[in-house]
């Protein structure tokens, strides 16, 4: 466990010593504050648009941080040859994968926390309410969704040698799932066999990341979702995360590093 935590700590240290997070945070803050300074048509509900834009930026930033941070982990270790002194120590490849996952997930969680605090401050300053339970649920589900994305990207990083190709593929896949994943079963109904079975299989195989998107709940100040739904989604993310991590480890443990 000590070795896994050591690897995870290294990943977190790398994230906060690089500029990616700060740039994305400053951009999100600037765009949100600029939008907040405007009030189109004297609409008293304009704060909802502001919240929507801010949350959208947080979602984009979260995805970019999670995917880019994770995609470079194992390829960079190979490129700089640091993987050799690392694996020459009593560290298994499984521990390395787990440490990298944990580091990326915790680092992304820290970044999300900062983003959501900013969001909370902005919306509280406008609405004078702070539905902390809804925000907490949104943050929790968002973090677990990114856990699945990180596991998926880590699995991709042992297959694709170049971090840029892995990051691009993952970004396209994740955005694709978020935008059209929920409609695949409906699309399948309109197709002929064997394409119908294929699309149906895809529908049941892919992780439905849209389950974790509760932005509307936060934007419209709806009541928090029930805890069993939240728990179910957490379990769903844990299962998919584990599947991708095991797949990544199975590929990586047989890879020749010489």
């Amino acid at each position: 466990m000590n070795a896994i935590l050591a690897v995870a700590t290294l990943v977190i240290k790398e994230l906060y010593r690089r500029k990616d997070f700060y740039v994305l945070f400053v951009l999100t803050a600037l765009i949100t504050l600029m939008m907040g300074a405007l009030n189109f048509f004297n609409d008293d509900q304009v704060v909802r648009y502001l919240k929507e834009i801010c949350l959208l930026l947080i979602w984009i930033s979260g995805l970019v941080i999670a995917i880019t941070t994770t995609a470079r982990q194992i390829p960079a270790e190979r490129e700089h040859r640091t993987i050799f002194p690392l694996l020459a120590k009593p560290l298994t490849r499984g521990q390395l994968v787990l440490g990298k996952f944990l580091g990326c997930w915790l680092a992304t969680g820290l970044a999300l926390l900062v983003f959501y605090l900013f969001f909370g401050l902005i919306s509280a300053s406008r609405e004078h309410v702070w539905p902390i339970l809804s925000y907490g649920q949104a943050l929790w589900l968002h973090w677990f969704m990114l856990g699945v994305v990180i596991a998926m990207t880590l699995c991709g990083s042992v297959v694709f040698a170049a971090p840029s190709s892995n990051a691009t593929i993952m970004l396209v896949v994740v955005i694709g799932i978020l935008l059209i994943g929920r409609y695949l079963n409906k699309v399948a109904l309109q197709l002929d066999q064997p394409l119908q079975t294929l699309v149906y299989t895809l529908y049941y195989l892919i992780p439905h990341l849209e389950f974790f998107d509760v932005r509307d709940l936060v934007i419209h100040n709806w009541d928090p979702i029930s805890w069993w739904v939240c728990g179910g989604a957490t379990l769903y993310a844990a299962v998919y995360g584990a599947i991708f991590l095991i797949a990544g480890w199975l590929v990586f443990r047989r890879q020749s590093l010489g």
Partner: protein
Amino acid sequence: MVTSGPETILSIDKLVVRYRARDTGPNGKLAVDRLTLEVQRGEVFGFLGPNGAGKTSTMNVLLGFIPPTAGTVSLFGVPVDRPIARQRIGYLPELTYYYRFLSAEELLRFYARIFGLPAELREQRIDMVLKLVELEHARKKTIRTYSRGMQQRVGLAQALINDPDLLILDEPTSGLDPIGRMKVRSIIQRLKQEGKTVFFSSHELGEVETVCDRVAILSQGELKTLGRVDELVRQYECDLEKIFLKVIGYSSEP
């Protein structure tokens, strides 16, 4: 079968490494061919050969980076595919660019944590190895500011962080200036005096002759010669460089 005595630290028995790729034909490329050798406790062992002789492939198997095609390799009597075999070794790879965003102190702390060293011992070891490699003054500077020689010394420091019984060094002086080489050589000699076992590959034959007890010379994956440096020098009546050229069958004449 090689019988491993109590003093055998590293044992390689009939090791075969064959790489398979599209351009190597149906049988693949034979990198190491039935290599058998042992390294005893306290020895400084030179592992020599021209480029492509199979040295790196052997080291890669030793460290578990690639699986052997055939044969067995063990460290301290433990097969190398078990991570525990690597608990008592230190490894310095050739040309490694350590995490540039860390300082030497942080890098060593990270590796020490992987070995599971307790916090107090960890700090003691960091102080000790940084002093040994003469990097105390730069311990808090990030590695991105280090010169090539300093990076090689921080590499040596990470290889020593767990106070290993066996040090595996891959071209420890490659790319270093004469002062850097002298420093690395003096560290190896100091480790030898402390009774550490050192297994290293190098193209610097003068250096090998100075520090090694025994050498093995490989060529085209085969072990060509193995013996004590002084005995080989007596037997061939020339220095190690000439022995090396003779053994690998190199002739400067057209």
